[in-house]
């Protein structure tokens, strides 16, 4: 694949001001407007600069390990009742799709003459990827992480620190991903002269949703080609998990124009949407503004953000990228919820049938594939974005399944 195909959007959206229909835009402090304008300009120029695209392609191929494999999951398919192909983003350097976006943004940071990156992270995948790219390019790195998440993802905190990043536990609000985002924005307002805020998903004020999408678009571009090579046809469905939604947009985008391909995103249903303890924004949210964008949002009658719940730190976010809201409203993509229990069942099933330990985020997509497979039947092919590997989640999983040695299940 070339950067040209990866970076060029398939359709006319967003418009020049970053709107996907009524979603997106730029709801941010005036202090950041100059930096957002600069970023939008720099991204446009970089996309069309052969030196930039060549350097990014080189890093993706020779550092991140792209293209990632498309793996036939034969034994898992028996349980799904359809043919399941796994897009193996777990095989990328740092263990998830996050590296695709971060390498692009780190190169842009250097191009803008900035010397520091900040990031927010939930499960730590984006934080680890950012710390990695910062080390590679010699940038200073600060990562904000909700205190709750630093506890459930302690291993990734250690990885980030090992890579030279400063990790700051955020103790405000619900002490999870959304609060880490708030803190990163506060930092950015005060440091914007020398600092780039490396947002980790297709969210935030324009140009972040379109820029992150374009850096992640490589997933779907590869998957589409690989699927046709492997099966002789396009898949019947493409499924991915959706928190902020970057792996899902990255996978969906190459297929948006293929009307025969169903695009299905699976959100974190937690204990079930009916219980109120969930993070399924498109299934259970309403229109609002958060973190610089207009999108669907989990909020109460006063427009206050609701606390979310998911067994997956990476999906524990009350908003969603604006392009997903648009795909949801237009009906081009479908969004459903997967409960914690369903995700963990699929997690265990992939381990036992394919010898692959997935991230708990990705396990939501796998649980979705099990449902979609039964609906579509044995002749159907489903591409699942396996967005990350599960090493970071072993403590959570081992506790959930009671696999820890006596006395260590707490």
């Amino acid at each position, binding site marked *: 694949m070339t950067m040209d195909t990866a970076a060029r959007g398939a359709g006319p959206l967003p418009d020049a001001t970053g709107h996907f229909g009524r979603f997106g835009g730029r709801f941010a*402090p005036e*202090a950041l*407007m100059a930096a957002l304008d600069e970023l939008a300009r720099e991204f446009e120029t970089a996309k069309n600069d052969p030196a930039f695209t060549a350097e990014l392609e080189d890093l993706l191929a020779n550092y991140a390990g792209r293209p990632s494999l498309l793996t036939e999951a034969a034994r898992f398919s028996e349980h799904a009742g359809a043919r399941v192909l796994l897009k193996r983003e777990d095989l990328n350097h740092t263990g998830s799709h996050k590296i695709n976006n971060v390498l692009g943004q780190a190169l842009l940071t250097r191009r803008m003459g900035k010397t520091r990156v900040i990031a927010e992270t939930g499960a730590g995948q984006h934080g680890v990827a950012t710390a990695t790219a910062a080390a590679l390019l010699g940038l200073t790195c600060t990562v904000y992480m909700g205190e709750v998440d630093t506890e459930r993802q302690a291993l990734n905190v250690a990885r980030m620190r090992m890579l030279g990043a400063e990790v700051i536990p955020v103790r*405000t609000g619900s002490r999870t991903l959304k609060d880490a985002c708030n803190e990163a924005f506060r930092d950015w307002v*005060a440091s914007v002269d020398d600092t780039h805020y490396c947002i980790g998903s297709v969210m935030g004020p324009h140009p972040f949703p379109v820029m992150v999408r374009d850096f992640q678009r490589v997933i779907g571009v590869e998957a589409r080609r690989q699927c046709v090579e492997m099966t002789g046809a396009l898949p019947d469905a493409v499924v991915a998990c959706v928190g902020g939604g970057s792996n899902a947009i990255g996978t969906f985008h190459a297929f948006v124009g293929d009307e025969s391909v169903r695009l299905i995103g699976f959100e974190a249903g937690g204990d079930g949407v009916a219980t109120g303890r969930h993070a399924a924004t498109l299934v259970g949210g309403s229109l609002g503004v958060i973190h610089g964008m207009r999108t669907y949002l989990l909020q109460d009658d006063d*427009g206050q953000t609701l606390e979310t719940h998911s067994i997956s730190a990476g999906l524990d976010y009350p908003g969603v990228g604006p392009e997903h809201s648009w795909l949801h409203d237009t009906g081009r993509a479908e969004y459903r919820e997967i409960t914690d229990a369903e995700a963990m069942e699929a997690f265990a099933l992939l381990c036992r049938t394919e010898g692959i330990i997935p991230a708990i985020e990705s396990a939501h997509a796998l649980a979705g594939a099990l449902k979609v497979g039964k609906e579509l039947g044995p002749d159907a092919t489903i591409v699942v974005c396996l967005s990350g590997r599960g090493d970071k989640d072993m403590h959570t999983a081992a506790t959930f399944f009671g696999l820890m040695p006596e006395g260590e299940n707490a």
Partner: protein
Amino acid sequence: MSAQTAYDKAKADGRAALVGYLPAGFPSYEGAVQAAKTMVDAGCDVIEIGLPYTDPMMDGPTIQDAVHRALVGGVRVADVFRTVEAVAATGVPVLVMTYWNPVDHYGVDRFARDLASAGGSGLITPDLTPEEGGPWLEASDAHGLDRVFLVALSSTDERIEAITRACRGFVYAASLMGVTGARSALDTGAPRLVERTRAVLDKAGSALPVGLGLGVGTGAQAAEVAGFADGVIVGSAFIRRLLDAPDLAAGLAGVRALTEELAAGVRHGR
């Protein structure tokens, strides 16, 4: 009543206006009303009532703390309107400072109507710029409300022009690149930002006043800012007095003393 009326009156007195901020519901519903009335009584010309919000992206630890307490205390949007009504009864202009989502969710026109009914003067919107503010520009026109947008040190002259054209009541100049919270020293770029904003307003033939906020917390700083801006905006320093006090009475005494210090400051700056 537009906030500009209070600015004009201060100007006629040969001084800058003093603008005080406090979130509704902090330290309690009644405590906030009493504190705001104390601020008016001791010399504030304009009051900003903060709408407590779960994700205060632009605020430092002091305001975050106060707003969190207000939300835990159960403050609702309806309480914000009640607070505005109680404080506006003192006769000073009262504006609501709010992040955009609560207004968006309430319904922009409905919010404007209810604010106007409560006697409120308008809104200050830290995360809404005129580009995204179409519905609010319409609603504020329909209900005769002030709309105060922010200009920042990083704003280009082109943006300052577009922002000030959309403003009514006053222009809020953010004195530093950073979040709310009292600072020991003001950014040296602040006078230059006010000067640039004035130049744009003068060119447009506008007499809109320019208030400067973020980081101001002492009488000496108020005097310094009053030397070059039309208004001095103070928030965190008031909250600090209430947070640090053992009880409401002591907090109100602290708020009164600070207001008097700042009010003296805006008179000594010219």
